């Protein structure tokens, strides 16, 4: 019997999903922040024991370990990355600080600057210049470069980001600078912008490369350590790492741009959602993940969660590598509720995991969303919550709600709790609408998929708010990212800038780009043990109308197996321009057929398929009403009343739970709002 294992490391818990044939076995243990690879080994030992095997024996039977890591995110949260320097084109040393003018709040003159990951003293310009066509305008001044590098060395720089103008067209100067750095600072960690993000414009590329330099050494060291431990323990294959684009890839591929693992945790959840949606016949999904501190939203259309590169801000830095678009809102269960000047505010302040909500009894004193929904009766403070290991405690909750919400709003505690619930719903609805607006889609056309500890509490009411009629809740909801990792496929998603009017595009040039991208992808995928026959390639172009800033991506061809670029013939460009007109009309409600669009980038998405869990089960036509375990006073949006409570373990496919009702699962609660029906699948 061969296994596959998905592993997701969160702030508090490390989640494991072991796929054994068609059986999915979940496990959860505490993370080990000092050396997270230890927690992984502990969990694997537990899984081995449960299978009646030694760790070595289990690992020798494992085909693939797929891992989502938050090391890059944690480095940026804690701001403890490498001492990093930046070498760039003389005259451009301040891009990282100027941020194209962007500030997060246009109304707040007291917003502080972001913590500098590379202060100005370690951002040095080097005389050199390459033009947009790759020609050398000013040769690299090596003497000046050495001097700059020595200045970095004096400051103890251990990681050097190198990002010069138009290096993605001609990388000669960046490559030479890398050699000079290696000579002057032996052992320095080097990030090259034409490898990290080979595309324009400069701010996006410089910033992404800088962040890569800052987090790279820690991420790489962690991955290397984990690989070693796994190897020592008997694992014989390559570790596959979750990327923020939703695909997985090997350590070898990520070595050039480890920044690609940033924000990969949420991406795993989204990919898992897509797989569940596919199994349940829902290809257009709104995925919501509400945990303790944040509420993550993303959209899947046509069964896919397209990664977008560009204006992705994380921890106040722009990282423009392709990312599954996940919008994070400060409204998790730990978000703090407060009222002032007649306004009720929920989040972004959060009680986090520690001290957490008051009802966790860990020292929290400020009322949170979790406390409010406890007052509403949506959560239970009975013994046995969360599978018996953890009990919520209402002591102090009412007084805090009275002091911070009910008092200022001049209402009762229960009314205050209800208002908090309403505001959370409204905040979530706004976040979703913003996301769907940017994507140009209508929430009413989506199925809502909810996970995370608190997601299913709000899912149905939020769906109702958005006009959504169907909600899916996976049984593995609380530790969903590990399951999601099992559903992720190896994927290389890269782009090269090529800005040219469609009518003047050179088809030979396009083919060259695709060949280069294809060869690169093939190299890494073959090295990861896949065969060419298994590689699926989507060849794409980015296009826009003259003057536009935002491009739309259109598929040129999709094929599996041996490389065949015969689709890229003389007729292709005209075909692509027509596809773009249609795409633009679909997206924005008008087109400009008289104007030839311009090409802005050449893309390739190369992927392979590996076995994933079958999220089957599915709905049966037969309906039997389940029996509630008990009743509890709760307010499900229509005032307090006695509400049926079901135990999740009692429910089987074919059961039918009419709202208002509450289903209590291990680690999570599903609220079935009035007018809704829950159908266990």
């Amino acid at each position, binding site marked *: 019997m061969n296994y596959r294992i998905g592993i997701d490391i969160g702030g508090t818990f490390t989640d494991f999903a072991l796929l054994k044939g068609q059986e999915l076995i979940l496990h959860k243990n505490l993370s080990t922040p000092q050396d997270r690879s230890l927690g992984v080994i502990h969990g694997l030992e537990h899984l081995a024991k449960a299978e009646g095997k030694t760790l070595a024996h289990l690992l020798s039977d494992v085909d693939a370990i797929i891992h989502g890591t938050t090391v890059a995110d944690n480095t940026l949260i804690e701001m403890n990355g490498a001492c990093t320097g930046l070498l760039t084109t003389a005259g451009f040393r301040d891009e990282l600080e100027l941020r194209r003018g962007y500030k997060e709040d246009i109304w707040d*003159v007291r917003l502080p600057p972001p913590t500098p990951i590379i202060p*100005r003293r370690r951002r040095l310009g080097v005389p050199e210049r390459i033009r947009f066509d790759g020609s050398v305008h000013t040769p690299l001044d090596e003497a000046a470069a050495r001097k700059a590098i020595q200045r970095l060395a004096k400051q103890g720089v251990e990681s050097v980001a190198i990002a010069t*103008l138009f290096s993605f067209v001609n990388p000669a100067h960046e490559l030479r600078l890398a050699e000079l750095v290696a000579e002057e600072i032996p052992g320095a960690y080097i990030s090259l912008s034409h490898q990290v993000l080979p595309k324009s414009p400069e*701010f996006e590329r410089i910033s992404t490369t800088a962040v890569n330099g800052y987090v790279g050494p820690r991420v790489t060291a962690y991955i290397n350590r984990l690989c070693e431990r796994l190897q020592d323990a008997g694992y014989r294959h390559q570790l596959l790492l979750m990327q923020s684009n939703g695909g997985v890839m090997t350590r070898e591929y990520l070595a050039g741009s480890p920044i690609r693992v940033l924000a990969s945790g949420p991406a795993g959840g989204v990919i898992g959602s897509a797989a569940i949606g596919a199994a349940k016949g829902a290809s257009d999904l709104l995925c919501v993940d509400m945990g303790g501190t944040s509420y993550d939203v993303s959209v899947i259309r046509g069964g896919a969660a397209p990664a977008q590169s560009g204006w992705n801000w994380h921890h106040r830095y722009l990282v423009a590598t392709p990312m599954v678009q996940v919008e994070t809102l400060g409204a998790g269960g730990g978000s703090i509720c407060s009222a002032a000047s007649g*306004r009720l505010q929920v989040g972004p302040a959060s009680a986090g995991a520690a001290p957490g909500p008051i009802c966790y009894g860990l020292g929290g004193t400020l009322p949170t969303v979790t406390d409010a929904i406890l007052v509403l009766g949506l959560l239970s403070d009975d013994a046995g919550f969360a599978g018996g290991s953890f009990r919520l405690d209402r002591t102090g909750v009412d007084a805090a709600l009275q002091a911070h919400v009910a008092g200022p709003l001049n209402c009762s505690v229960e009314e205050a709790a209800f208002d908090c619930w309403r505001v959370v719903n409204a905040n979530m*609805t706004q976040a979703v609408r*913003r996301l769907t607006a940017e994507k*140009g889609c209508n929430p009413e056309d989506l199925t809502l998929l909810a996970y995370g500890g608190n997601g299913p509490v709000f899912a149905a009411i939020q769906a109702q708010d958005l006009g959504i009629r169907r909600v899916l809740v996976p049984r593995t909801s609380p530790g969903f990212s590990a399951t999601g990792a099992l559903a992720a496929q190896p994927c290389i998603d890269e782009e090269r800038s090529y800005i040219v009017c469609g009518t003047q595009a050179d088809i030979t040039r396009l083919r060259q780009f695709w060949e280069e991208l294809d060869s690169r992808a093939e190299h890494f995928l073959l090295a990861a043990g896949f065969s060419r026959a298994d590689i699926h390639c989507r060849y794409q172009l980015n296009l826009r109308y003259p003057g536009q800033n935002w491009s739309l991506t259109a598929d040129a061809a999709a094929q599996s197996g041996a490389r065949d670029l015969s689709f890229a013939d003389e007729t292709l460009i005209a075909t692509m321009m027509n596809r773009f007109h249609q795409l633009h009309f679909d997206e924005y409600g008008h087109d400009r057929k008289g104007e030839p669009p311009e090409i802005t980038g050449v893309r390739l998405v190369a992927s392979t398929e590996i076995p994933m869990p079958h999220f089957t089960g599915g709905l049966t036509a037969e309906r039997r009403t389940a029996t509630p375990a008990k009743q509890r006073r709760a307010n499900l949006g229509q005032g307090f009343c006695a509400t049926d409570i079901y135990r999740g373990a009692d429910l089987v496919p074919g059961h039918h739970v009419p709202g208002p009702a509450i289903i209590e699962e291990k680690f999570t609660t599903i609220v079935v709002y009035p007018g809704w029906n829950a159908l266990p699948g």
Partner: protein
Amino acid sequence: MSFELNRRLVARRPALATSTTIDAVTASIVNGAFETICFEVATHLGRAASSAIINQSNERNASLIDANGRLAAVSVGIPQLLFVSPLAVRWGLENFVEDDWGPGDVFVGNDPDYGGGHLPDYTVYAPLFDEHGELVLIQALQAHQGDTGGKDPGGFSIDSRDIFGEGLGIPVLKLVHRGKPRRDAIDLLIRNNRFPSFAGDIAAMISAVQAGVRSLQVLLTRYGVETVKAAVNYNIDQTNARFRQAVAQWPDGEYPAHVWIDQDTAGNPDVHVQVTCRISGDQLTVDMTGSDSRPELVNVWNTFANTRGYAIAQLASMVDPDINKNEGLFYAVEMIIPEGSILQPAPNKPAALGSFHPAVEVGEAICIALSPILPQRSAPQVYKLGMPSAVIGFNEAGEMWMDQGVDVRASDASATQGLDGWGAMCAGLGNLILATAEDAESRFPVLNLSREMTTDTGGAGRWRGQPGTRNIKQVLEPVSAMTWMVSRKHPLRGLNGGDDAPPYCNIFLLGTDEEFEVENAVNAQLPAGAITSYQYGGGAGFEDPLLRDPTAVQEDVLDEYVSIAAARERYGVVLTGSLDDWNVAIDVDKTAQLRGARLAARAAGGAR
């Protein structure tokens, strides 16, 4: 088209008629939905528009206006401009019957003498009716157009003596009637614009407000018309009350300020903006009496709607950022804007450049006036650059191209108490996303040679201004280059004892025999290879530089924001060592001596 019309347009409008009452939470939920819909509308335009100023620089602002012409909500954008649309829409509303308003209509207006901003700022708006055919809300969208069909390309003219030289003025024009686009009207606009891409911009603006109306329709259905009306009323009242609560905390009194602009585009010197902020209880009056009204002034005439917008934007930055931005701000603040002055010009004055200056000086003067009593929120929300250097040429096909010069730069990022200036610009311009070299050079025959911050170009202070950048650009083909310089003689003012920002300096034909510094306005023909060098002014300082923590000065020296010489000269901090040897250290004793001597000299009446 008269002062009388302006008075009518700004007259206080009543609340929407409804007997429904609403609770705070529902009202804030509806407000959130409004803001989101505005965001959707602005995003739609940004994605679909063709002009860099809209799709890259985000110079597009969506707002919601109620049936009585009151500002109900805004989205992200440029604060000053977010407040401008209501007056243009009110002119449209005055003609509700004659213009046969109905569901599915879309209008446009841009005329400064009919409630508009300057001509390039088109306000496109679409009404929303309830099921009984009663007007409820109007979705408005304002965006800066790359051209307005005037005598000079680009919408700006440095020597236009009236508005007709600047382009096509549109009090109101119906673009879509009951859902059907009016080809005749849209063609008129397209014909009066030099950029072929304008057709895409106007199509995108229309489809964006239509999308907004559809979203609003859903909102009406969900909450009911009366609830939505009650929410509008509630939120406006709430903003009014919260702003007044803030004012009530401020000490009563009269706080005057004067700001000067170097000169108008014809060389008339020292254009004067005067503001007196009067506080009495919870009432703030912003009195602009005394501001310049010389009839011979050229191009420094701000539009009436913009004067109001710039004043409110500055004030909104000086209170809790959490207060909703809507008509309540106009309820709370009384503005006295002298008729015939540069802040409320007589009809037909040119208005394009006035939206830079004296527009920003209105905000600057308010900030200076209130800085003694609001030190923690006194950062001027300004851009003191005259106008960007626009470079215009023609390609082989004879089509015009324009590099608008809204390049990545640092300018005017000022300090406030407890916080150094940072980033590229003031907070209010945080959505104006600046143009990149790689994109510009792929489109236009230009080369960006440098744009780093220049050491010692931020105003010194206990909290210092961010240095300005020096943007050096080479043109690779013959072009015409147009610019207007201010802030050379009267740079951005330091506050509460902080230093002024250093002056702006713009040099054309750098490194040639013909090199010259632009002293005023210029529309120059530059040969291929010509280089321009634009030193932007940095931010202003806040409080006495001698009070700055010496360690912070040392850090600034390491980062080359401040030189070792300026550390001594401007901060009284004596440093030893050098950057080359990376051993810069504070001489504690000499620093104490020097600072002591400076303070003593100052106490004795010496200059700082």
